[in-house]
């Protein structure tokens, strides 16, 4: 069975400083991994996805994530936070060949001016 743990429920950073949102996963087979972002009162938007190609995945809005199999991690980073990055972020896993997604509980990112 697959599972996802987002290690922080809330992260607060100052504008212009780096962002790190942590995600560990558990999966029996080669997983696909995703990060979605949800702005207040909006739907979920795909930031990036990993599907067994390059381990460093670049997404939209300057975000990237690195797949580390040995650490079962898929942390999301951004070099410099912007006010518009304030949102909730979800790490998501699916088994290879499966359409069933398992969501983490989310990390709320606050950006301080």
């Amino acid at each position: 069975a697959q599972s996802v743990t987002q290690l922080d429920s809330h992260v607060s950073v100052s504008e212009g400083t780096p962002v790190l949102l942590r995600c560990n996963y558990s999966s029996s087979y080669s997983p696909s991994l995703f990060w979605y972002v949800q702005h207040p009162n909006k739907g979920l938007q795909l930031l990036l996805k990993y599907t067994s190609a390059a381990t460093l995945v670049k997404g939209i809005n300057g975000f990237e994530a690195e797949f580390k199999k040995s650490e079962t991690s898929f942390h999301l980073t951004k070099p410099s936070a912007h006010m518009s990055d304030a949102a909730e972020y979800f790490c998501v896993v699916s088994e290879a060949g499966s359409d069933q997604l398992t969501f983490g509980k989310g990390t709320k990112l606050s950006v301080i001016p």
Partner: protein
Amino acid sequence: DAGITQSPRHKVTETGTPVTLRCHQTENHRYMYWYRQDPGHGLRLIHYSYGVKDTDKGEVSDGYSVSRSKTEDFLLTLESATSSQTSVYFCAISPGVDTQYFGPGTRLTVL
């Protein structure tokens, strides 16, 4: 948002009443999903569909039913709404075993 609409966007209803939420897509994708989002739980799968009249249960299907009579529409019905079904409901679509794209959500309050 990937050609997905949900209706209504907001609904307040009373315990015991039936409620139907609609998801409509213009992408002609085979796969459609209904999720609910509750604080501290992320999103949880209610039901899904792999095509017309092909539906199955997800993790939290009790108290919900679905129907898909056309490729573009996926209906979620609460036969007799309860306060525990107060939530935000999201529809998602996918061309197959691939990325899912989410609709804008429906906020349902059951009093």
